[in-house]
């Protein structure tokens, strides 16, 4: 599904990724953990095509196709989704308008028929109920005045609407209370499917109790320094990242 090979990347002349290798099979859930500033969000931005980051070497393939050549919106249409670590506020743009525009843009790019207002509303109602987002929130401007937890829920709602093939969740658990964590995890689990892969970035083993990963990676100083099963997360919780810091250096 996703194949990242020897990826190096920089921003403003500063090298962040140093030969990162990662493969995620169809239907798999991988978790990435790692110290602050290791390059986790950088990886998520590069996967989704943020132009400020310059890829200086290596490749990223999705289902055999080189996605580095694609614009962010083309990637979205191809099924790449990023739940942002810091969701962005867009004043004056109603959540419902935003969702409608996004979904229909993606559908159009995929050669599917655009949904009319009624069909959209129905779909939205169904998904928002699942994730516990109120009608009132959909009337508000995108992320404006949302609490930290509401923002994260909203990211998952968008994911559920867009039904991506490959979703990157960048610290979606941060800022969620226990109940929200459960609801959000259920939302993610409901989307798990044979042809859909996830990359879950987190600092807390706790999330992985709800979203059971197939593989756990440690990312430090711009590369994957260790890969293991779910038990690796428990080990990290106990022993921290110090053991990897020298290795990566």
């Amino acid at each position, binding site marked *: 599904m996703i194949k990242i090979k020897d990826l190096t990347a920089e921003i403003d002349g500063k090298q962040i990724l140093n030969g990162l290798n990662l493969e995620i099979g169809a239907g798999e859930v991988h978790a990435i953990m790692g110290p602050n500033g290791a390059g986790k969000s950088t990886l998520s931005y590069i996967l989704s095509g943020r132009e400020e980051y310059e890829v200086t070497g290596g490749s990223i393939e999705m289902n055999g196709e080189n996605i580095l050549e694609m614009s962010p919106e083309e990637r*979205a249409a191809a099924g790449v989704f990023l739940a942002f670590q810091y969701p962005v506020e867009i004043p004056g743009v109603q959540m419902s308008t935003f969702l409608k525009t996004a979904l229909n843009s993606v559908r159009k790019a995929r050669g599917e028929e655009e949904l009319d207002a009624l069909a959209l509303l129905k779909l939205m109602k169904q998904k928002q109920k699942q994730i516990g987002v109120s009608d009132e929130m959909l009337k508000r401007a995108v992320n404006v005045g949302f609490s930290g937890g509401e923002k994260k829920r909203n990211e998952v709602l968008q994911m559920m609407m*867009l039904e991506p093939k490959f979703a990157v969740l960048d610290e979606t658990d941060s800022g969620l209370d226990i109940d929200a964590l459960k609801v959000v995890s259920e939302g993610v689990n409901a989307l798990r499917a044979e042809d859909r892969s996830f990359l879950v970035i987190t600092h807390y083993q706790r999330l992985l109790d709800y979203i059971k990963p197939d593989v756990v990676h440690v990312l430090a100083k711009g590369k994957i320094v260790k890969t293991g099963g779910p038990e690796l997360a428990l080990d990290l919780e106990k022993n921290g990242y110090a053991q990897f810091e020298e290795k990566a250096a």
Partner: protein
Amino acid sequence: MSDISNARIEQQTIDQVNALDTYSAGFVTDIESDKAPKGLSEDIVRFISAKKNEPEWLLEYRLKAYRHWLKMPEPSWAKVDFPEIDYQDYYYYAAPKSSENAPETLDDVDPKLLETYEKLGIPLREQEILAGVKNPVAVDVVFDSVSVATTFKKKLKEKGVIFCSISDAIKDYPELVKKYMGSVVPYHDNKHACLNAAVFTDGSFVYIPEGVRCPMELSTYFRINEMNTGQFERTLIIADKGAYVSYLEGCTAPMRDENQLHAAVVELITHDDAEIKYSTVQNWYPGDENGKGGIYNFVTKRGLCEGKNSKISWTQVETGSAITWKYPSCILKGDGSQGEFYSVAITNNHQQADTGTKMVHIGKNTKSRIIAKGISAGHSDSTYRGQVKVLAGADNARNFTQCDSLLIGGTCGAHTVPYIDAKNPTATLEHEATTSKISDDQLFYCRQRGIGEEEALALIVNGFCREVMQNLPMEFAVEAQKLIGISLEGSVG
């Protein structure tokens, strides 16, 4: 222009005017020649007045204005830059040979423009308007210098509402026109308004009688079609005691390499407890990517809240024109009267806009509210210029002003020039201003969700303008939203 052609035109004018005098009865057939000779002179003013079969008092008014205009300086305080206008290089009267073939001249329009209109849904709309059946909005269509159609006249008449071209009003309701025309914007107000008073050709007239709520939206659709033609329309709207009307104005013009002149005058009058809501979506041709061509939009719009507790609200979405010079204003004379100004001004490429408002508080307990959103892209320049004036007698006057500028890219400019002049210590004036850049984070967030770059920009800009867009009547809001997207095309990436 060479002396020879000048001389020829003068001769033409003289011949035409002479012909008019000689064959005043044969006037109707004369309409076949559908343009006045190029240039501006007293004879041209007489020509226009004669063409329109006007009463003597109006010709006198025009001539007075023309003579005054000759002596007036060009307004120079606006932050716009353009070569001196050669007033002799324009036609001041152009009429389609008959109203039926007017829309057909769309065939002559540059295909690139038609494409734009197609995206806007305007060609269809225009036909609907001209057919006058489907559209629930009553429409007056002004094509170059003349009104070619006014719909729903009868239905409105039943309610006592008068909605017709200003030419018809001069014939049919001379008392009303005489009483109000020039009462809010005197002919000597400024050079552009003065020119308009001398050579205005058509426009709309609305009168809502006492206690009547106009049963439908009224609208005028202006179009400059002829080359080198100036459009000088004049609109006069009167809401008598307790009356209400919502009026919309839309404008388009074909792409021409020459700069076309548009100098309109709009006067609004509200009596006690009356309200006028005036909305504009201005989409005159802005010129090409390099700043060639486009409309000079020099407009004087002013409303007089004559009666107590009356209200005038201006909403404008300005996306077109090479140069916009426009300050829809309110004179709050009646005690407790209210003025509002909601504006979106978008400039791209080499467009220049200097727009804003003037709120003059005269009566007690008068209130005004100004929300201005300026968006600049490309090499364009946009200025908000506003004045809030509180006269000594305006106890407890209140104003709230908010000006927000949004910059797209690094080669455009945005300026805010607020003047405040308060002569009454009980006045409360609030002013807020922000300038921001379109954020890469916002654009990327949208694009990550599959929304293309230009659509993302349009979405964000529409969000930025939401407070203003909400004030537009529904049918216009959708069109205006699309227009915002179109006018910003090519400004990102």
